[in-house]
């Protein structure tokens, strides 16, 4: 009997230790069943559980009476987040994972100061992008020159038909690659301010109907592409 009593005492203590989590509903299913079996058989454990619930209510009320942080915390925090360069480096690291090796290398080559300038340029590009989008409604292809560098003495001068693409920041490299393969696109130049890429989608002299089809395909992928328009 002595042995059994000691085991019972040990189990009782073990159950007693679990009661706070049982009251809070944060016990595992196995321990919950163990506690429920014990309190069903032991009235003193049920009384103890009532005390635990009183303590729980008091602790909760005490915490709820504590102050909340002021609004200035979030304001200051967001200012600091805006000033953080870390995410650009993070984006570069992720981009290195696949087709964007090339893009990642470009970013990683940039000095922090250059990245800061790039961020400024990106802000400027938002204004430019607004113009580009607006021009889409007006309709003259030449209007898209705004976001293009124009011909230069590199691969960017290769003959062909081009579009300007802005990818969503949340698009992953795999989706971007698949979409480019779908339209037989090749990135020729970029990222330009605002994150635009100049993409070759066909030979020079590609019909307007074919170009429109490519643009419609790209525009249909809103999860990946945030902007697309013809480019020179």
């Amino acid at each position, binding site marked *: 009997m002595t042995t059994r009593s000691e085991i019972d005492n040990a189990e009782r203590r073990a159950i007693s*230790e679990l009661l706070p989590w049982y009251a809070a509903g944060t016990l595992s299913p196995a321990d919950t069943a163990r506690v429920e079996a014990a309190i069903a058989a032991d009235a003193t454990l049920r009384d103890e559980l009532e005390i635990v619930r009183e303590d729980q209510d008091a*602790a909760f009320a005490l*915490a709820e009476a*504590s102050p909340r942080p*002021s609004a200035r*915390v979030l304001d200051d925090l967001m200012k600091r987040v805006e000033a953080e360069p870390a995410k650009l480096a993070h984006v570069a690291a992720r981009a290195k994972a696949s087709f964007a090796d090339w893009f990642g290398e470009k970013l990683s080559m940039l000095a922090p100061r250059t990245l800061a300038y790039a961020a400024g340029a990106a802000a400027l590009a938002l204004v430019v992008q607004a113009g580009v989008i607006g021009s889409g409604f007006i309709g003259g292809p030449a209007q898209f020159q705004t976001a293009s560098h124009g011909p230069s003495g590199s691969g960017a001068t290769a003959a062909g038909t081009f579009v300007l693409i802005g990818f969503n920041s949340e698009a992953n490299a795999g989706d971007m690659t698949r979409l480019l393969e779908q339209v037989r696109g090749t990135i020729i130049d970029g990222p330009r301010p605002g994150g635009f890429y100049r993409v070759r989608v066909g030979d020079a002299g590609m019909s307007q109907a074919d170009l429109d089809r490519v643009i419609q395909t790209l525009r249909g992928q809103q999860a990946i592409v945030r902007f697309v328009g013809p480019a020179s």
Partner: protein
Amino acid sequence: MQSDSDQDLILRVAKGDRLAFRTLYARHNVRVFRFILRFIKDEGQAEDLIGEVFLDVWRQADRFEGRSSVSTWILGMARFKALSSLRKTTDAELDEEKAGAIADDADTPEVVAQKVDKAQAIRRCIDQLSPEHREIVDLVYYQEKSISEVAEIVRIPENTVKTRMFYARKRLQELMQSAGVDRGWP
């Protein structure tokens, strides 16, 4: 409409999504702030610290491995920052003495019992627990953390979590008995 889970939000934060970050902050800032207040009594300093904690959330979101819940991860960071801040304060020990002195200056448990009802007496007695006991009571009852989550936040073994909580409750009972309220346990 189903709201995003913390896990979804942290993935979006890792990609630089500011809206997700604001949502995560709105969801957790009050509880994390109150947890920090357990260590840092000064509200202004606690606000500075919570800013530091969430800035780390922004910076380190891509390193979140999902082994624990997001709130446990954040509370762990908050605890580390709060304790680091206390260590930096050369008179941290003095603060503990001050806290003891404040408790001494407060009404005695007997007076408390005369003045307030039972629930208020429990609250006052919880407030008089040691920082270690106060912390675990807060984590279990207010933050609703499981045994393993408390172990992760406080960085102690799970068995120690259980015994620490047990002795916190015993100490609370002693304080209640001193206040003239015998609840029949242990």
